[in-house]
């Protein structure tokens, strides 16, 4: 154990301990709970910043204790891990502020924030896992800690959504477990490593590795919402807005996508996977998901449902990037891990603001919301344009690199997928923007609450403005010295290092 390992443990504990303490707080101790939440999120943010600068300088970070016989519980911080952990800690901080504002005066807040912190702990653990078994542990922990958040409201619809969620993710987890055990039997303990760890087996166990890859993708594809395994996601949007925001941007869906990234790059190694011939089918599955999700989004009148199908589509950009061989495609996919996160969390924050302030849940009720809530709608506009891929916003940068990588790899068909996706995104986002800005507002909103001096409570307003600012920053200053893109280029350079 070296001096740097306490940081890794600290990052995990900052939310874990917070969560445990909050469970025992009285429902009324609002102030204390809020401060604890913010303290936990703040400490994590600082620790992650230290980690980020350390990994950038090339310092090694690892932590391991004996866990199962012969298999350690191991944490590590390679460049992939740091990307994901930075994303989750920054967005967790924003979502904590948002959730405090959103859940004011509602029952069961201690339960909510307790599981909320545990959920973040699990996500952080997924990011920092250094071997497959640790990853699997946190992955399952995430499944379980998210369930109470989805059913938080306790309505019939919420319980039904939660049941569907559990059924899908537990079966997916079982398939994943099968794949992990099989691979262990074949290769021994699997430690994540750039360029993969199974090259030696390709000659002798080709068929088995292909089957295992299929199982890995099926297991992880449930959370990553690959079609046709995505059915739980639109049902899970019954959760409160901050949960949906986290679920779609960093926690569950992202964990699945990050898992696929880990399997492709750090277990199989992208070049090995290409020689096994498993990348092409994955790319096709991602392409189908991208188009299908967008088509389904077109038909949804409920705003959060439309956003949910949009997530189905956009998360597969990450998978598509992983499934195309070449550093540029890797950059496009990995950077979308961050870009999709900041764009989608903005959209869900805004959807929550409309629902909470005006009582509007449907696209058809959004006439004139731009006049009533200009700042929220501005943030929504930025994120929606980013999703379409309008330059110079974040989504455009992802699309540029994905497209370029696909052309360099000779996969020209991807141009059709990305083109169709952009057009469909425009078709389901631009009418919302038109309604919001150009149509006259109704005489009375479905259920209006006036809070504070701003258009809504400042704790609901600030987070989407900050994340929308990040969407602009990540696009306009993509190639400056500090941006997600620069970090992702580092990842690609390490993955394809000669």
């Amino acid at each position, binding site marked *: 154990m070296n001096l740097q390992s306490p940081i890794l443990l600290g990052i995990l504990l900052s939310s874990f301990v917070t969560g445990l303490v909050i469970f025992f707080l009285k429902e009324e101790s609002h102030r204390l709970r809020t401060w604890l939440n913010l303290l936990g999120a703040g400490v994590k943010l600082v620790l992650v910043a230290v980690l980020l600068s350390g990994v950038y300088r090339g310092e090694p970070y690892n932590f391991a204790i004996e866990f199962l016989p012969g298999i350690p519980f191991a944490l590590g911080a390679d460049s992939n891990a740091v990307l994901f952990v930075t994303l989750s800690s920054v967005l967790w901080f924003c979502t904590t502020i948002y959730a405090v504002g959103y859940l004011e005066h509602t029952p069961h807040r201690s339960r909510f924030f307790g599981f909320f912190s545990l959920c973040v702990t699990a996500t952080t653990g997924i990011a920092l896992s250094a071997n497959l078994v640790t990853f699997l542990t946190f992955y399952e922990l995430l499944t379980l800690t998210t369930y109470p958040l989805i059913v938080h409201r306790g309505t019939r619809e919420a319980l039904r959504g939660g049941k569907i969620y559990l059924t899908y993710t537990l079966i997916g987890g079982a398939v994943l477990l099968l794949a992990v055990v099989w691979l262990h039997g074949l290769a021994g303990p699997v430690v994540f490593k750039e360029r993969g760890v199974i090259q030696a087996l390709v000659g002798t166990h080709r068929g088995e590795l292909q089957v295992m890859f299929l199982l890995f993708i099926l297991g992880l594809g449930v959370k990553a919402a690959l079609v046709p395994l995505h059915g739980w996601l639109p049902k899970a949007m019954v959760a409160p807005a901050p949960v949906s925001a986290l679920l779609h941007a960093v926690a569950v869906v992202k964990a699945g996508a990050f898992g696929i990234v880990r399997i492709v790059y750090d277990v199989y190694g992208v070049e090995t996977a290409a020689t096994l011939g498993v990348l092409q089918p994955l790319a096709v599955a991602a392409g189908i998901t991208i188009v299908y999700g967008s088509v389904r989004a077109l038909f949804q009148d409920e705003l959060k449902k439309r956003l949910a199908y949009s997530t189905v589509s956009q998360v597969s950009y990450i998978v598509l990037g992983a499934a195309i061989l070449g550093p540029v495609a890797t950059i496009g996919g990995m950077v979308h891990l961050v870009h999709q996160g900041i764009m989608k969390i903005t959209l869900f924050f805004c959807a929550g603001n409309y629902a909470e302030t005006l009582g509007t849940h449907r696209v058809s009720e959004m006439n004139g919301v731009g006049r009533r809530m200009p700042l929220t709608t501005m943030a929504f506009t930025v994120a929606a344009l980013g999703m*379409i891929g309008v330059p110079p916003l974040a989504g455009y940068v992802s699309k540029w690199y994905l497209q370029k990588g696909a052309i360099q790899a000779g996969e020209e068909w991807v141009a059709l997928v990305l083109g169709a996706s952009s057009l469909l995104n425009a078709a389901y986002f631009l009418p919302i923007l038109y309604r919001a800005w150009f149509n006259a507002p109704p005489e009375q909103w479905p259920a209006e609450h006036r809070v504070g001096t701003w258009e809504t409570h400042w704790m609901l307003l600030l987070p989407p403005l900050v994340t929308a600012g990040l969407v602009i920053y990540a696009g306009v200053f993509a190639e400056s010295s500090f941006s997600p893109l620069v970090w992702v280029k580092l990842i690609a350079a390490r993955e394809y290092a000669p």
Partner: protein
Amino acid sequence: MNASAIQSLLLLAAPGLPILAALALTITSWRGAVMRATPVAAVPALLLVVAGQSGASLHLPSLGQHAVLGLDAVGRIFLGFTSVLWLTSGWYARAYLAHDPNPVRFHLFFFLAMAGNFGLILASDVPTFYACFTLMGLASAGLVLHRGDAEAVRAGRVYLALAMLGEVLIFTGFVFLTVSGGTTQIAELHRGVFSQPALLLLLAGFGIKAGALSLHFWLPLAHPAAPVPASAVLSGAMLKAGLLGWIRFLPLGEAAMPLSGFTLISAGLGAAVLGTFVGVVQKNPKTVLAYSSISQMGIITTGIGIGALRPESWLDIQWAVLIYATHHALAKGALFLGIGPAHAAQTRLQVITARVGLLLPALALAGAPFTSGGLAKVAIKSNIAFLPGGWADVLGILLPLAAVGTALKMARFLWLTWPGHPHPAEEHAKGLWPPWLCLVGAVLVGAWLLPGALGSLPVKLTPAKLWLATWPLLVGGGLAMLGAWLRRWFSGDLTRWLPAGDLGVLLERPLARVQLRMSGRPVPDHADGHGGGSAEKDLRGAARLAAVGGRLARIEDSLRAWPVAGAALLLLIGVILWLLAQ
């Protein structure tokens, strides 16, 4: 401050000042002042045209993917007519929007579109060009939609659909282009092998913006729907962005492209013909002008096509195209802006001024001798003699016919707007006159300021040459009179058969149904839409579409049923066994 710092500042201010103006509009107390100063936003661009050094460039390494702004010879000419148009239109907008309910929103989109338009002309790298092009395209949707009535919404929907399609085509083309060229700097792009997909994608993508045939139908809907000052910049300046895209990104002058050349010439001539037939029957003067733009851009498209066939004389052709573009931009802008004063002319002096002011750009567009149009026509014609195959003959016949068509459309336009009866004038209309008259003045001198324009004047104007330039005008005028005379016996509405938006009208129904399904309310019948379905039919279409959506949802739900999951599991096991057996 030294000279190069001033150059950099001008390069930055040309797109930067309009952006700042747009941002300033968000501060409530500044709005009035900003909107009064609209034309000032175009001043840095105009200064750059006058005082900018060719070759000046500004690197912004941390912005975008290393953004570079620069000024070259082609850019200077484009920036010339573009900045004059934005300046006069912005000035005009001040009076035009005096009683508009939403002036702030109009100005916001006006400034953003202006910034995009200046930026794409100065962009020296592909991503910056694309970003500015998109900014202009999306912001001008706000201008088209501005009025907010059924016609504007319809126009805006068609415009946005086509604009987004164009964005996607251009984006994909750009990625292909930068991959094959190995750089994002425009000047260095064509050193490598030119990628064929990029060629096709960019031809079509910029074709949408330039209103090329079969991709043009958004234009006669959008231009009339926008407020007059916006129509002027849409038709005069923004269409030319498509042309600039072709000039910048196609390998013109480097390789002969027979297929592209053939396509461009056919599409261009087709647009010239179609614009005439549909244009002359329109009842809205702005729609007539929009169809005239389609015809005129058709001639320019033909010019680009000639360049694609004859790379060795590209520089001559490019010069002719630039003259034509400048001439058309200014004259068309002046005609659009003239609609307001023509309507508001009150005193005898005003009526006469309005008549002269409309007649001059109309004559120029029709290509009368000694006008910029005459100069532009000669410039284009001088390039067709060397064309391979039968093209020289075909063009020799068709170009004068196109001129006849233009004369006819101009007659139609003047017929519809001719100032005569004094109206009860509105006070704010006074402010429309100065910007319009300035633009008319620019029409008179503009094209002659281009390098080499004066020198190209034929030294000896023989009567034969004069006749060659005049007869299409006379024929056009004669036909117009004949038409007006025939109209006494025929009172049917020709726009029933040739509606504004021609091809687009065919596509509109299915698109409207999609929209209807999404909005959940009936789409109103269009004021000038011809025939088509009743509201009931629309609803049935919507029900069908809803059924499709519902079916998808049911299929998805059935995936959650246990028997399906069990069957899938069995299938999966089968696949695994099959893979392992291999």
